[in-house]
C-alpha cells in the first residue's frame, strides 16, 4: 500500500466510510508500516491513537497530557469500539417488526406482518390486472390480424 493509499484509507475511516475488512487492513498496516513509509506521519499517528495503538514516535517529553483527558480518550475509544461492534454485528441481526401509521408506532409482530401481507396482496392484484390487460391487448391484435387474412 502506498502512502497516499494509506492516507485515503485513514480519511475514509475517520469519515465512517470503511467496511470491517478495510478497518482490519488499516489496523494491520498501521501496526506494521510498509517498507519505505515515512518515519513520522502525523495522520497515521492520529489514526493509531484513535485505534488504540501506542504512537510509533516518542511522545513529547515536555508536555504531559492531563490524566482527565487520557481517561476521557480511553472511554471514547472504548465507546466507539463497542458501538462499531454492536452495530456491525448485532445491528442487522436484531429482529424488527415496526410500522408507523401516520406517525403512530406499532411494534406488534402479527399486526406488522399483516400489514406486509396486505401490501403484497395489493401488488399481486395489480400484477394480475396488468397481465389481464396484456392478454386483452394481444387478443385484440390477434383478432385484427385474423381479420386481415
Amino acid at each position: 500500500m502506498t502512502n497516499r493509499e494509506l492516507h485515503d484509507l485513514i480519511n475514509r475511516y475517520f469519515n465512517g466510510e470503511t467496511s470491517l475488512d478495510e478497518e482490519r487492513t488499516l489496523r494491520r498496516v498501521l501496526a506494521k508500516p510498509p517498507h519505505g513509509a515515512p518515519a513520522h506521519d502525523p495522520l497515521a499517528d492520529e489514526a493509531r491513537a484513535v485505534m488504540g495503538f501506542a504512537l510509533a514516535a516518542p511522545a513529547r517529553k515536555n508536555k504531559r497530557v492531563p490524566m482527565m483527558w487520557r481517561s476521557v480518550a480511553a472511554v471514547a475509544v472504548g465507546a466507539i469500539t463497542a458501538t462499531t461492534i454492536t452495530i456491525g454485528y448485532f445491528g442487522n441481526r436484531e429482529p424488527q417488526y415496526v410500522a408507523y401509521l401516520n406517525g403512530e408506532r406499532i411494534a406488534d409482530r402479527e399486526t406488522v406482518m399483516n400489514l406486509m401481507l396486505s401490501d403484497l396482496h395489493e401488488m399481486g392484484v395489480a400484477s394480475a390486472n396488468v397481465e389481464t390487460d396484456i392478454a386483452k391487448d394481444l387478443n385484440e391484435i390477434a383478432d385484427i390480424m385474423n381479420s386481415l387474412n
Partner: protein
Amino acid sequence: MNIRIIILSLTLLIAATPAAYSQKGLDIEPFFEENTPHNPDASVNVVSITGNKLKEHDLSIYRSVSVTGDEALAQRVERAVTRDGTKAESREVSLKRGRLYFGFYSLPPVDNDNRHTGENRYIFYLNSTLDGGRKITLIYLQGKAEPWQIRRMIKK
C-alpha cells in the same frame, strides 16, 4: 496530536457510524424513514421488518411506504423508482396516462454489505391513483428469494 481534537474526532465518528450502516445506494431509501417529509394532511404509512418471519419467505429485509393525499411526494417517489429501475436486471412495468402505474424490478444483488452480500433485491411500485384509487405504494424486498418466489408470494 492534541488530545482534544482526537476526542472530537471520535465523537463525530460515533455520530457518523449509524448513518454509514444505513446506506443502501438506492434513491428510494429515504422514503422508508418514518419522518420522511410530507404534506401534514397526507396519510403516510411505513413498515420495516427484519426477522424470522421473513425467513419463511427466504427474505431478510422488508420495507414499505404508502402515501395517500400527497401528490408531490408521490411524484418524488415515482422519480426515485424510475431512477433505481434503470439499474434493474429485469423489470415489469405498466404505464397509464403516461405515468408509472405498476413496476416490479429485480435489482443486482447486494455487494456493499458484508452481512447481506449476494442477496437479491426487488422493488415493487403501485400508483393506484391512476386506476381509481388514492394511494401509492412502494415496497423494497431483499433476501435469497428468487423472482419466481416473489411472484408466487404476491399472488397468495
